[in-house]
């Protein structure tokens, strides 16, 4: 089976500071993969490299075998890769419904059309309603997105990310800054929406990571020091030494 996402010798330096120092990683189709690591390990930078937000210094990213070098974020998105952001990134002045509908436009084939009326397009409104149903925001349909609570905004962010039907979904710290019950809600949501899709996520909450991920990569100072199933990673002495020890003890 070919990998959904493959990184080859990926590096990134800002000036003389190397942030990502040669990352090789293969993520299979349908896998739920978590990237963990201490603060400043370069997790978000890795995300930004994969999604074309920053250009890489060297190495390559392959999406379903296709090299993404030089493609802009919108082109990468059209190839079937969608991402969420660590800091909530929605359209605050538009309604919740409109947020989701905008996320549907490209994938439903509307492109830059100026001859369709979005209000009359049944596929758009029904699709958006279905996603709102999925993310439990149907009640808040007409509220401006900027007025939602933090957890609701995070849920909306996930809704926007999955709306386009991308088969590779990347979530950057989806549960950051959430209370325990909110985290449970989001985890359930992620499990639901990532079915039959490839999920890559950066996460700090070990409960979330070990509950959701099929495989885990540990990123420390711009290098992946271990990749494997949760059990393998938990047992890996290098990981325990570098990072996990304290967090794991806190878990048990």
């Amino acid at each position, binding site marked *: 089976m070919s990998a959904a996402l493959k990184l080859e010798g990926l590096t990134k330096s800002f000036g003389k500071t190397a942030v990502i120092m040669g990352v090789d990683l293969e993520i299979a189709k349908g896998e739920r993969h978590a990237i963990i690591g201490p603060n400043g390990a370069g997790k978000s930078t890795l995300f930004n490299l994969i*999604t074309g*937000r920053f250009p890489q210094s060297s190495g390559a990213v392959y999406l379903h075998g296709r090299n993404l070098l030089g493609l*802009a*974020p*919108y082109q990468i*998105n*059209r190839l079937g890769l*969608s*991402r969420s*952001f660590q800091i909530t*990134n*929605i*359209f*605050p*002045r*538009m309604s919740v419904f*409109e947020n989701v*509908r*905008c*996320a549907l*436009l*490209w*994938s439903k084939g*509307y*492109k*830059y*059309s*100026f*001859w*369709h*009326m*979005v*209000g009359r397009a*049944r596929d758009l*409104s*029904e699709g958006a*309603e279905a996603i709102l149903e999925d993310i439990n925001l149907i009640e808040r349909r007409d509220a401006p997105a900027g007025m939602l609570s933090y957890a609701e905004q995070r849920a909306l962010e996930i809704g*926007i990310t999955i709306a*386009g039907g991308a088969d590779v979904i990347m979530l950057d710290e989806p549960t950051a800054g959430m209370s325990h019950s909110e985290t449970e809600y989001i985890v359930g949501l992620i499990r639901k929406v990532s079915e039959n899709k490839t999920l890559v996520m950066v996460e700090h909450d070990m409960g979330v990571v070990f509950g959701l991920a099929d495989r885990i990569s540990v990123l420390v100072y711009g290098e992946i020091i271990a990749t494997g199933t949760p059990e393998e990673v938990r047992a890996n002495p290098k990981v325990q030494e570098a990072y996990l020890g304290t967090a794991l003890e806190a878990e048990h």
Partner: protein
Amino acid sequence: MNSSISEKASLPQRNEFWKLVFPWVLTALFLLFLPVIFASNSALTIMNQMAITIIFALAYNMLLGQGGMLSFGHAVYMGVGGFMCVHVMNYVEINSAPLSLPFLPIFGGLFGLGLATLVGTFSTRSAGTVFAMISLGVGELIAACSLIIVAFFGGEEGVSADRTYMRPFFEIEFFTQIEVYYLTSVWLLISALLMYLFSRTPIGRMANAVRDNPERAEFLGYSARWVRYYSFCASGFFCGIAGALFAINFEILTEENLNLATSGSILLVTFLGGVGVFFGPIIGAVLFTLLQTVLGLYTELWQLYLGALFLATVMFFPQGFAGVLVSHAPAARNGRLGSLFIPYVKMAAPSAVCLWSVAGLAELLFHARHAALGEEEMVYFGINMLSTSVIPWTVFGGLAVISFGICRKVAPSVLEAWDKAITPKGMAQ
């Protein structure tokens, strides 16, 4: 589950349809019968000017309000459309080409669109300061060209044409002002409707999305730059239509139609009316044209008052007049709109006196400094007074101070009434 959604949707959709169509039918009837009330030629001229400004302001707001692009040189798209139309009119006159006047705005639109497609390729790369600076540069460049390329722009005198030499349109030759009024009104209705519909299309919706958060839009498959580019082109098209209507109405275009003052005033018009609401610029354009033409008849200081109004809008009502109107929607939903009437009157009366007396002071000062030597008498709202005498100064000054004091005293109670009105009934303390 699907069927339940569609059943729910079908009824509101029919309502939605009427909600969409009704205002436009009403507007059409309004425009049809407006000349019955205002029949004089000067009134018709003012209304035509209003219609042109409305189209221009709506087109400008496609960028500013819908797309989040602040243009400082937008007069050139209207101006170039207008100049081209003057040349088209002259061409038709000389070669007796088969074109009648009502179709001229299509040409204006296409020329505006043409210029926008060229300039947009480099100006829409990013929004914000870069876009504003490029628009300023291009605006200034083309305005300066008007004095250099005399063959096209006609130098300081501008270029002129005669609309009546076009092919008659069903025997109408557009000699009279009323004929031009109906031509302008039809185009106003068409353009406004098309611009409204544009805001409901995928590209129009994405213009909002890119305005709010260009980066997020990029991660949804849309290039922020191309979204901006298409909005820019559409705006150029409607600016060109406004330019053509200007050419038809005034039969002359000059450097004034291109310069920065015109570009600046359309920003002012749009902002005054409110950028956040589709119909906002319409209010702004009506208000601005009235101030310019009617107030301009009475006082030389009209620009001062306009500037003060603009300043007050930016500082106290950044959402413009339309924004103020829309903010009353919650009160209306609560059925408490009526409760605001008396507080508003209480506030309006001293405010009016205050404005009246401050304007009086301004007029006194202007008269004292600028009237011909020895001329001391002036008229203000039908009252004769001497600008050199102490009495009017004291009266205006005193009234201004007292009424301002009353305003400040009344303000808290008005705010309280407002808070009460916008709180839903069940939630009142």
